[in-house]
């Protein structure tokens, strides 16, 4: 097809992908790459490059203002960025050693895991002792509630940091935000309040993605003709999706989407195993 046709089709598809990613909270990255590789036949390297760029845009440009105000724990975020960005760097280098087939297979598996991770029933985490290290680093804080600021503690910093490094590796390897795993680490392991975990994760995603973006750029994964359409579609799409998210009754949508994600994940695994890419 012509560049114009490709651009228009990809732009519209990326708009939908960005919208769905924001609406379901899974992020645009996990939707974009399968869309580009399975539907548009784009090589997975170009797909993860475009997806990573889109993620940086959506996480930096999102109207994070009023929702996250007072919830984001920047200290925790910055501290965890040290292992996370190192992981992302490692993941990006690893990506250039795995072939397209392996990337697709790993992507499919991680996609399904991310869906499971983000669909866990929100059960309250058993209270436990705060990590003395977190006190020394002044990590505990408060979050706003209608009744006033509610204090919280921070637990198991080293374990949380370790899991975050893993999330970083996934982010750099697959060009995704890995938000589902970051939230998991902060919510379940470090016992941060859920809204603090989600907002802090959103804060971190762009920085983590930037750590691998430089490697992607120098390897040539960031192809201008592909990225231009993806970026110009996914960013408005995700801004729209974030707006709708506030109002939509999205439980049934999430169920439908979860099924679709599993199917897509299986497709990616098949594609990878059968040597496509």
């Amino acid at each position, binding site marked *: 097809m012509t560049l114009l046709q490709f651009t228009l089709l990809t732009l519209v598809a990326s708009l939908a992908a960005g919208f769905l990613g924001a609406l379901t909270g899974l992020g645009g990255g996990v939707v974009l790459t399968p869309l580009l590789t399975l539907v548009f036949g784009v090589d997975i390297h170009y797909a993860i490059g475009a997806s990573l760029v889109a993620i*940086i845009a959506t996480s930096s440009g999102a109207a*994070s203002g009023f929702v996250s105000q007072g919830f984001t724990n920047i200290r925790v975020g910055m501290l965890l960025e040290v292992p996370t960005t190192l992981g992302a760097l490692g993941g990006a280098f690893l990506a250039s050693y795995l072939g397209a087939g392996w990337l697709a297979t790993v992507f499919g598996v991680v996609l399904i895991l991310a869906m499971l991770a983000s669909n866990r029933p929100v059960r309250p985490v058993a209270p436990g002792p705060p990590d003395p290290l977190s006190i020394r680093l002044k990590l505990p804080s408060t979050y706003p509630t209608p009744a006033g600021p509610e204090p919280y503690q921070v637990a198991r910093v080293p374990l949380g940091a370790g899991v975050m490094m893993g999330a970083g590796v996934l982010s750099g390897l697959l060009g995704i935000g890995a938000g589902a795993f970051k939230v998991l680490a902060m919510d379940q392991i470090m016992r941060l309040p859920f809204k603090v975990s989600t907002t802090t994760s959103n804060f971190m995603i762009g920085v983590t993605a930037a750590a691998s973006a430089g490697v992607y750029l120098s390897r*040539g994964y960031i192809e*201008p003709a592909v990225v231009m359409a993806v*970026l110009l579609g996914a960013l408005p799409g995700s801004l729209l999706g974030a707006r709708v998210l506030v109002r939509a009754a999205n439980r049934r949508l999430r169920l439908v989407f979860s099924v679709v994600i599993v199917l897509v994940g299986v497709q990616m695994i098949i594609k990878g195993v059968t040597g496509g890419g």
Partner: protein
Amino acid sequence: MGSAPATLEERIGRLLRAMVAAAVAVVALGAVLYLIRHGAETVSFSTFAPGPLELRDPIRIVAAAFTLDPPAVIQFGILILLLTPVARVILCAVTYARSRDLAFAGLTAAVLAVLLFSLFWRG
């Protein structure tokens, strides 16, 4: 205090959104130029091969972008976008340094080092 004061988050947010807007504008400009010149050409992205160096090296990208070479303009916009989280980290580092929180200023500087390494190391 664990959470940053609201004003820090506000300032970071405003700067980031401005940079993203600038990046998107440049990419859009490059996209229009690209389509005008090459829109009717057949393209295929099904096989991966690294592109020319001017589109993969930051310094070369900036140089090529000023000649209004469309893919270079697009990459230049992407570079601005990639610098957005860098700006966020720098702002955080400065804020921690100013409030004499040297441990966290150092941590943030370490993150900055990783980001810059990713962008500029050639191997």
